[in-house]
């Protein structure tokens, strides 16, 4: 079993959204960020429940949903794995990016500023950060 950081210290659940949905979301985030590789083995339902400190029934539900959405697959008695389907992975990334964009647009909507200026700022910030990342390598 590949060890991976998924302790409850890094995942904070809120109590208002269904926990299973929060788990699925977390998986999607990890996939989009590339922390979960296609075809990577994931913990069993029980192990996940224990690591995330959630109810095993919730873990069960999350897996069921993810299986239905094609995010994970289970072959026979083997442990479940992240999908290798590129289309699905792509759509997950897109889904999260669109979410981030919606969020971003929502926050700047109230600030009266032309889009071109905003995009300039975004590019500047992005370049600066990747430049730093380059230097620190």
């Amino acid at each position: 079993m590949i060890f991976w950081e998924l302790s409850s210290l890094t995942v904070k659940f809120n109590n208002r959204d269904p926990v299973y949905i929060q788990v699925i979301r977390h998986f999607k985030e990890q996939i989009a960020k590339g922390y979960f590789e296609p075809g990577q083995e994931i913990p069993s339902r029980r192990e996940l429940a224990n690591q995330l400190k959630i109810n095993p029934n919730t873990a069960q539900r999350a897996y069921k949903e993810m299986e239905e959405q094609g995010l994970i697959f289970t072959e026979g008695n083997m442990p479940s794995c992240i999908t290798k389907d590129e289309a699905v992975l792509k759509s997950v990334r897109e889904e999260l990016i669109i979410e981030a964009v919606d969020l971003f647009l929502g926050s700047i909507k109230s600030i009266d500023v032309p889009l071109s200026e905003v995009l300039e700022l975004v590019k500047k910030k992005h370049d600066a950060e990747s430049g730093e990342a380059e230097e620190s390598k």
Partner: protein
Amino acid sequence: MIEVKNVEKKYGRKRVLNSLSFTAEKGEITCLIGINGVGKTTIMKAIMALTPINSGEILIDGEKIRKESYEKVTFIPDTITMLPQMKICDAFAFMADFYKNWNPQRAEELLQFFKLDPTERIANLSKGNMAKVNMILGLALDVDYLLMDEPFSGIDIFSREQIAEVFTSHLIEDRGVIITTHEISDIEHLIDRAVLIDNGKVLKEFSVEEVREKDGKSVVDVMREVYGR
């Protein structure tokens, strides 16, 4: 499943349980919520026939409680159920002697998980450690149903975390668990069903994830609505 049907109980003039009804399924964690004195501990004792009821019915898998039922359901109260002068290993030996369903390997496993010394006398244990031993006495039994009364009360946060770990592990899987607690916000994400009790009556019984999905409310939110506080 454990069915509590219209249970009435009077203590002197006070109606402690007022036509109280709820159900707890196997494989789910059901949490009884309510302030002190509202009847949570009483109903648990009543389920275990540790206190009489005036009317109503309590069924465990469709049957009234009998002596064999104690190999099917166990109760972990907030007080130790062994003699204080016993060592932990003595307590385990006692359980092994009387219960067919006692699982010594699991008891050993839990002892190590909780980092307890089997040669310690129960009377010399701290409150947190005593609660853990109490837990082991219940968890190491291969029972279908576990009743736990305030498993987190009066215990330091690290002990609490250890105990919470138990709830997400294989130790609880497939069993029916009924717990009572005050610390509901800590364990909201652990429970399947919530039963809100006030004045010996069930005000609301619901599936926690369902309410989150449909209404976007946490258990604490529902509590505020129902109790009006």
